[in-house]
């Protein structure tokens, strides 16, 4: 009895400390300490020498990775429930399973580097500095959304964060990305653009047109193929004669990366940025996996087995990998990690509650942002009845 009370007393004593900054408590959670990790798999390269498998990291970074990915995972699961509750309508493409790509990429670059992707953009938006409230409000079509409720799930943008969307027509964002790289080269700033697309869009012609131009003019563009092996319901081997997407650039070098390993992603993106600034475009193929179906209307099990999904979840889950690393290096306890996840659950729920209270856009918003204010529609057009000039 005495033992339990004393343990309880100790726990009560320790609890407030544990809920504060983790780094100061543990021996090895000194933020200047470096840890060397090896990527799960070596990089496979095409027309280039692959970067090294060993990466140095710090306990701080490990905790940040865990925290960011947990938040993204939580957000996507919450979006799933919101969709089923009919608060999110239309299309909703979830990113859970692929968080390592977003987090790894973000850790290797700055906010002045540009990222552009297709419709599976919620987590990348978060990584670029978007808030949970902006996300959920946009998903529910509210005024406080990142695009004022006018874009929806597929149109998240964050100009200050260098996030250029959020595009519904897959493949079309790659020429846009080349344009971003063109502008970076034009202004002679030493930044790069990551143009992301999926294994389905990898078969679009405009991708190769864009690649040709990027290689021709040495544009600082990095094409990232997030290969989750299924283009909606079609497996990659049924859609592409050559599913080795990193090799499809031919004269453009490519790197195949384990997209479920956040350190591999980080290393590859750092390497790619250095390469692109000097030598022009490079293709990164991220071998990743999505647990949900293509979108909320797709159960995700008609074209793949549940065993496959649970197998990947057990063996390759990005958050689990970080969790094991953290526990192995004694940076935090199991309980602390669970507390972080609970904390994330709480802030996500708070954001959802706040977003639910946010009002729908004003009817006048229907006509705003069609043209840049002050230019454009002056009189009635055959298209819109916004009367600006009194007709005779």
């Amino acid at each position: 009895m005495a033992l339990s009370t004393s343990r309880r007393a100790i726990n009560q004593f320790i609890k407030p400390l544990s809920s504060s900054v983790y780094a100061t408590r543990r021996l090895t959670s000194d933020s200047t300490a470096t840890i060397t990790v090896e990527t799960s798999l070596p990089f496979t390269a095409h027309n280039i020498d692959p970067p090294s498998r060993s990466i140095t990291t710090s306990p701080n970074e490990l905790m940040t990775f865990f925290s960011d990915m947990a938040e993204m995972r939580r957000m996507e699961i919450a979006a799933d429930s919101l969709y089923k509750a009919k608060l999110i309508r239309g299309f909703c493409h979830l990113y859970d399973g692929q968080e390592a790509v977003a987090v790894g990429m973000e850790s290797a670059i700055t906010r002045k580097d540009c990222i552009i992707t297709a419709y599976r953009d919620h987590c990348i938006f978060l990584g670029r500095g978007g808030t949970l409230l902006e996300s959920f409000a946009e998903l529910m079509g509210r005024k406080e959304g990142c695009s004022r409720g006018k874009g929806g799930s597929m149109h998240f943008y964050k100009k200050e964060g260098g996030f250029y969307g959020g595009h519904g027509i897959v493949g079309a964002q790659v020429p846009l990305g080349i344009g971003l790289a063109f502008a970076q080269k034009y202004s002679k700033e030493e930044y790069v653009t990551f143009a992301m697309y999926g294994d389905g869009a990898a078969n679009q012609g405009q991708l190769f047109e864009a690649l040709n131009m990027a290689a021709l003019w040495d544009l600082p563009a990095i094409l990232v193929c997030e290969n989750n092996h299924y283009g909606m319901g079609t497996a990659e081997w049924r859609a592409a004669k050559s599913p080795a997407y990193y090799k499809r650039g031919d004269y453009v070098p490519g790197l195949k990366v384990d997209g479920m390993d956040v350190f591999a992603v980080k290393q590859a993106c750092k390497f790619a940025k250095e390469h692109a600034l000097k030598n022009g475009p490079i293709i990164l193929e991220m071998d990743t996996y999505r647990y949900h179906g293509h979108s909320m209307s797709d159960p995700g099990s008609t074209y793949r087995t549940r065993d496959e999904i649970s197998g990947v979840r057990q063996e390759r889950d990005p958050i689990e990998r970080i969790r094991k690393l953290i526990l192995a290096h004694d940076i935090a306890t199991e309980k602390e990690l669970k507390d972080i996840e609970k904390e994330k659950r709480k802030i996500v729920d708070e954001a959802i509650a706040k977003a639910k209270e946010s009002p729908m856009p004003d009817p006048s918003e229907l006509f705003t942002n069609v043209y840049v204010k002050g230019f454009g529609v002056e009189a009635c057009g055959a298209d819109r009845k916004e009367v600006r000039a009194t007709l005779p």
Partner: protein
Amino acid sequence: MAAIIQGIGAATALTSPNSLDIKKSFLSISPRSLSVRKGSSFVVSSDGRLSYGLNGRGGRAEHFITNAVAAKEDTAAASTSSKPGHELLLFEALREGLEEEMDRDPTVCVMGEDVGHYGGSYKVTKGLAPKYGDLRVLDTPIAENSFTGMGIGAAMTGLRPVVEGMNMGFLLLAFNQISNNCGMLHYTSGGQFKIPIVIRGPGGVGRQLGAEHSQRLESYFQSIPGIQMVACSTPYNAKGLMKAAIRSDNPVILFEHVLLYNLKERIPDEEYVLNLEEAEMVRPGEHVTILTYSRMRYHVMQAAKTLVNKGYDPEVIDIRSLKPFDLYTIGKSVKKTHRVLIVEECMRTGGIGASLTAAITENFHDYLDAPIVCLSSQDVPTPYAGTLENWTVVQPPQIVTAVEQLCQ
């Protein structure tokens, strides 16, 4: 709108030389046209901001123009015997506009097929690549979809690309980029990104170029929300519209015509920028309003010669702004004449004329004494044979007949 007219010379130069030329090239127009003429005036306010239309909303400040015209006439009389301005061809006017904007703003760049070293397939960009470099006047591969997309992506970051389609018909390959990304990104991003791109190129029926090279894309693009469309028809408005399109923060599609590139006109030396949303009064009249744009303007003016000889007084308006329509100018004209004839080069189905007919009927039905007549090209692919091609487009005799029937 507290806009200060900077350089009265600029404002005045807009009106007199042009109207003088039009007087010369077409019919004798009564002097009252000078005072009635409003149209293409543009004001640059002292802080460099552009204000479209003298009062911006509705009322055109006619008192500005007439004063300015009067002043100009005084100085013109006092000036040397050589006429003001300089003479050039339409493609040179476009180049002049483009070059002036590229000098003024380092973010303006050109991209398209053969625009650089070759100088442009219609010489619009000749001499620009040696002057500004290969990156700023970019020769692209034949990949309309992706280089238009590239231009739009560059515009998202703040550059002002001018994308040239070698022929407008080729831009059908870039329809997705133009519709979804160019037109809609400002809206779907909630206003975060603006797309100050200009997409330009020659279109329209040429001289036996064949069906695929004689397309009128204004009818396909007109539904896209978020873009503006303008069509130039004279060297004067070509330069002015090019400059306005580049300065506009909205995506603008500038439609040129293959057969109009060699038109010669005297344009002012001073800088001028036209209003993108304004129509141009070519010939004021009383009996019937003829609305037209691009090449058909010349067919209409040719028909107008015949009509005047027959005793009619047509009012000819070059609508210039295809999206949105300048319903103010058009409405004033309809209120005066009560009869409308639309002459266009688009095909009858789903063309600019069809939309314009609907817009006028919706807004000005009470002022019409007769149904609107819309003369358009036939709904056929443009044939190669010369005679067949002539029958595809509207010819002046058809315009004369239509006016006679309307005015019965």
